[in-house]
């Protein structure tokens, strides 16, 4: 089973604690902001995904701050009528993956590929009988969080963003794949989550 993946994102930030981070010069030079202020409405959902991806409050806050900083800086490339929610989640996911790739290149790094391989290696079998179904129903918050943390980053992302109410089209935009692939990824990710939950909800 894949282990919970917590990855430090501190290198994303210049210096100092999260509350005192400054991203100033490169974004202040832009002549105008075409971004809707509604982008801030997604802060809680972005934080929840970041928290599940990083496994750490401080890293999650860094990741969300960097997401908004990148969105702000790239605002001129954001087209009118584009889906700001999917766009923000895509930035966050890509930042997280970049952080992972850098870590992979370090001597002690683990890679997203390892996680994906672990997910793909899971043999999915239907639950056996009502007893297992009852065990699944009896899982508590800690079991769910532990089981989620054992999934690959993209499996976690697709399950959580579906739960946040993103459409399959939005999920495809976030993950950079087709809607058909989203369907199969979501189905498989939920099946793996059910299997893992049975391990944790004992």
């Amino acid at each position, binding site marked *: 089973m894949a282990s919970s993946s917590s990855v430090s994102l501190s290198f994303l930030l210049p210096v100092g604690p*999260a*509350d005192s981070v400054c*991203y100033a010069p490169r974004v202040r030079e832009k002549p105008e902001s075409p971004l809707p*202020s509604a*982008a*801030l409405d997604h802060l809680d959902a972005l934080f929840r995904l970041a928290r599940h991806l990083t496994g750490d*409050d401080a890293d999650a806050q860094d990741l969300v701050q960097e997401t908004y900083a990148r969105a702000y800086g790239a605002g001129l490339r954001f087209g009118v009528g584009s889906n700001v929610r999917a766009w923000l989640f895509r930035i966050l996911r890509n930042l997280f993956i970049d952080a992972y790739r850098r870590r992979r290149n370090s001597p002690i790094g683990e890679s997203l590929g390892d996680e994906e391989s672990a997910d793909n290696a899971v043999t999915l079998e239907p639950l056996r009988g009502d007893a297992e179904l009852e065990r699944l129903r009896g899982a508590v918050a800690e079991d769910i*969080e532990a089981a989620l943390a054992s999934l690959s980053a993209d499996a976690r992302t697709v399950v959580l963003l*579906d739960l946040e*109410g993103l459409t399959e089209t939005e999920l495809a935009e976030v993950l950079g794949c087709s809607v058909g692939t989203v369907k199969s990824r979501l189905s498989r990710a939920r099946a793996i989550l059910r299997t893992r939950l049975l391990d944790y909800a004992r």
Partner: protein
Amino acid sequence: MECTEARTLLLAWRRGTLSAPLRAALEVHVPECESCRHDDAADSALSKLLERSLPRRRAPESLRRAVAAKWDEPYAPRLSRARAVARSVGAMALGAALTVLVLFGWHARAPGETMVAEAVSDHLRVLYRDRPVEVESGGIHQVKPWFEGRLDFAPAVSFGGDADFPLQGGSVGYFVDRKAATFVFKRRLHLITLFVFRAQGLPWPAVASEHIGQARGTLRTSNGFHVLLWRDGDLGYALVSDVDERDLKTLASKIPNGG
């Protein structure tokens, strides 16, 4: 249909978002396939578990303040002295105009905007309460009687929630200048607030094109929240949430004609 394909469609099937041909194929396959039936039961249990028990964290206030502060920073390029003076004069004029707008804003807004803004603000107030409801739901026949003696009207709502939109409970609140019955429903992880209030004397939107039972309503979006407003007899209804528009309309279609 093969089991592998069927299993990728079960979630959309339960949510009612499958196309008619796929739904028909699934409705033939699943009843005959014990394995898929069991898979569907397990996945349905997972949905309920995630909606009920997965902690729904909010971003820390420090993060909210930091992001909002950066977002509000002006993109404006540096101005020449002359342009800066012109801009100051313009800002003063704008300030004066805003003062007038604030003083007379209620009447100056387009019809319906005040109600949309009010609905979003009231919905946020519900979300930010420690306990969004004052009476927990044991069904509509427990929630509706609770309003007796607390309101000077009977909220006509017969829908008591279902698997897609479970009723969380109710409370008494205010909508603009009057008391309102507040019902809170859930859709996956999202809360949906329904306000029911006396309709008379409010600045209703001029155009109402959404079909909600026998009534006609107006759908607006404000700050990422969808708001459905409609009148039915003497009562007004405002349904607010950040769920998908389709979900909001689906719930709205179940609410009217209360008895």
